[in-house]
């Protein structure tokens, strides 16, 4: 049990920043550049960690709570989700609700810490973040409902169990395909990727997630970046397990297959970011409502 927990966390903590490195490398290749080294995200984190804290006099403890909660929540959430064929260290009936709302908790604190600065940009970013994520939330829940219908339990470990492979070959395959698309879009929204948000932009008026953390620096920014990387890996784990439900039975090959799946997902995100422009902001809610309808449709298909 302890060994499984350590392996789970080690995979998460060590591999998560690599995903961003792979995305950046993919984008660089599309842009005709060599790009930053794969390990750049690790260097950045090390650099930020060595710096000191700078706090504005107008902020309170809430300002620091944002990054701290942002880092701990993905860690907690990761314990509930299986990494590929490796089962989740903690699992109980109904943990999927906890999984979804742990992220809501971290969002609440990120938004609160953004509002704490009193800056008009951060307020704007917070408003956008809240609007978009409350539109993304139903999609995620419907997706989990579809998975719950296909399995006979209400824990994420059961939901993403070995029955998925047979489910893909049954009538439910179409539904699984639909929710895979929905999950990918939710992943892009939640991790502020193109076409919903642009993680590289320096234009404060167009940012969503980035603008909320403009005033954080040093270790606090490091925590936010690391937390974001962990979040992407945790949400990616859901997607990867759904897309590659095979298992070999040996923990090492299972772990490697999981990591390969994640790397593939990162490349896919990189490709999407390279060939698409950002959506206009008013279009984002429309796309999210569309995704929600898609996931409802998937649910209808498995309920019939």
């Amino acid at each position, binding site marked *: 049990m302890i060994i499984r927990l350590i392996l789970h966390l080690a995979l998460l903590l060590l591999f998560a920043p690599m995903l961003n490195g792979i995305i950046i490398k993919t*984008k660089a290749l*599309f*842009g*005709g*550049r060599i790009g930053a080294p794969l390990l750049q995200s690790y260097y950045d984190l090390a650099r930020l960690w060595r710096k000191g804290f700078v706090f504005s006099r107008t902020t309170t403890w809430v300002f620091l709570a944002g990054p701290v909660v942002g880092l701990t929540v993905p860690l907690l959430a990761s314990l509930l989700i299986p990494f590929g064929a490796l089962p989740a260290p903690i699992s109980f009936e109904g943990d999927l609700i906890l999984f979804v709302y742990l992220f809501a908790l971290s969002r609440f604190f990120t938004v609160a810490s953004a509002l704490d600065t009193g800056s*008009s*940009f951060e*307020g*704007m970013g917070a408003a956008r973040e809240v609007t978009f994520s409350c539109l993304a939330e139903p999609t995620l829940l419907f997706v989990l409902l579809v998975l719950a219908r296909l399995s006979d339990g209400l824990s994420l470990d059961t939901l993403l169990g070995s029955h998925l492979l047979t489910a893909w070959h049954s009538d439910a395959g179409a539904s699984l395909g639909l929710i895979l698309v929905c999950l990918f879009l939710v992943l892009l929204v939640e991790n502020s990727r*193109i*076409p919903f948000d*642009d993680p*590289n*932009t*320096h*234009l*404060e*008026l*167009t940012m969503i997630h980035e603008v909320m953390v*403009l005033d954080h620096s040093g270790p606090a920014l490091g925590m936010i970046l690391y937390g974001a990387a962990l979040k992407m890996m945790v949400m990616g784990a859901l997607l990867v397990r759904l897309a590659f439900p095979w298992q070999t039975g040996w923990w090492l090959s299972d772990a490697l297959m999981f990591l390969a799946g994640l790397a593939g997902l990162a490349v896919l995100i990189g490709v999407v*970011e*390279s*060939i*698409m*422009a*950002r*959506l*206009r*902001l*008013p*279009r984002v809610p429309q796309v999210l409502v569309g995704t929600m309808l898609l996931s409802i449709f998937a649910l209808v298909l498995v309920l019939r």
Partner: protein
Amino acid sequence: MNNAKPLRFRNGFVVPLVELPHLDYAEFSESLLAEVAADARIASYFGRPLADGLEIYAILAHDWNGELSLLRTQVNGSFPSLTPLCPQLHLFERELAEQYGVRPDKHPWLKPVRFHKTWIDAADIWGRPHGKHPVPGDMEFYRVDGEEVHEVAVGPVHAGVIEPGHFRFQCHGEEVMHLEISLGYQHRGIEQMLIGGPHPSTIYLLETSAGDTTVGHATAYSQLLESLAGCESPLRAQAIRALALELERLANHVGDIGALAGDVGFLPTASFCGRLRGDYLNLTAELCGSRFGRGLVRPGGVGFDLDGTLPQTFVERLKILKRETRGAIDLCFDAPSVLARFEGTGLVRTDDAEALGMVGVAARGCGLVRDARLHHPFGIWEGGFDTPIIELDGDVFARGNVRRREINASLELINQLLRGLPQGPISQPLGPLAADSLALSLCEGWRGEVVHAAITDAVGRIDRYKIVDPSFHNWSGLSMAMRGQQISDFPLCNKSFNLSYCGFDL
């Protein structure tokens, strides 16, 4: 109608001041408004302090006649503002008020422009403390009141590495109701430093009045001095100037399209155009050693010749660059996700563009044919340019597409220039400048028309030098373009205009 028929000239004219009638202000305003009603637009409008008041010169462009007309009047203390009847004057009148402490009565938007002390010993009309440098951006901003209205202030320090400027948005949710732009952070007092010239440093000041339009401003200045000296630069020099001007246009337009793509997060075009812009700048560097064309254009000719194998190298490099540029740009203009962002964003109606007196790329994107190479030809273009490019929609796409088509046109023009490069000297010495005269020179820089005007004193020294960068006309266009738009689209609109802060601030 008893208004005096104003004198009409062509680009590059010199007129002795004695030949210019003194109109009284009523006559002046009547003639000016009549001219504007007859399709003229304000090219330049500036004052010259005299012992007993302020002389105002208005230069109007009649584009389709290829003519410029000139009016002069004198005011003292305050005068009725013409802005309510002719909105394109609004910044010019504010400028006069700030520089000379005169008051345009009933000006609807009388605020400082560049935040500097008055140029002459006159009281500041806004009552700012005498002798102290005013704080830029320290003024009453337009405010919209209401419970759901919020104000967003951006700048002068921005998140990217760009010039400083302050933008004040009045927003209702994500929608912008009004944008007010306050500049002046880069005011260096260039026009003041030019008085008493030409000094040895004059050309360097002008080259840096807007760094990305180095060739444009240097060409306008050189032409001005040449007309004042009554000589013409050799044909070969004119061709090299035109070539450098088109290279400047190419570099900036390619960079702008890359930046537009970057703003909507479209990676490939953003990356490739950044590199290609560097390639075009390097071509300019091959010619004169400076990527921005510093030191190339000089009064009397050019400082560097396009000799030896250079023309051949240019032709070969441009052949490759043309293919690559087209590829990179078409990628962006063929992507539906990009077009969805460009089309319908940042609309300026043609009427508004005309009323605001917009020029250059931004005006041509609104369907106004305003291109000094066509209407007020200078240098090698006399009779040689017939392909102005216009787009009708007035949105970000139109401004982007004007650039795309101008890139293709410029590549063609450079090819023609390289094939028919005239032989001969590249420079000739200038004689003394005409005394007590007014000279004017227009040049189509990449952003739009650059207007320089100079008045000389009794010994042929510069007494007043007036620079009008295209940005001066166009910043109000950006404000108009933002009305009713999403605030998140502001960076995109701003980039589609890509106006100069320092060219405005001078």
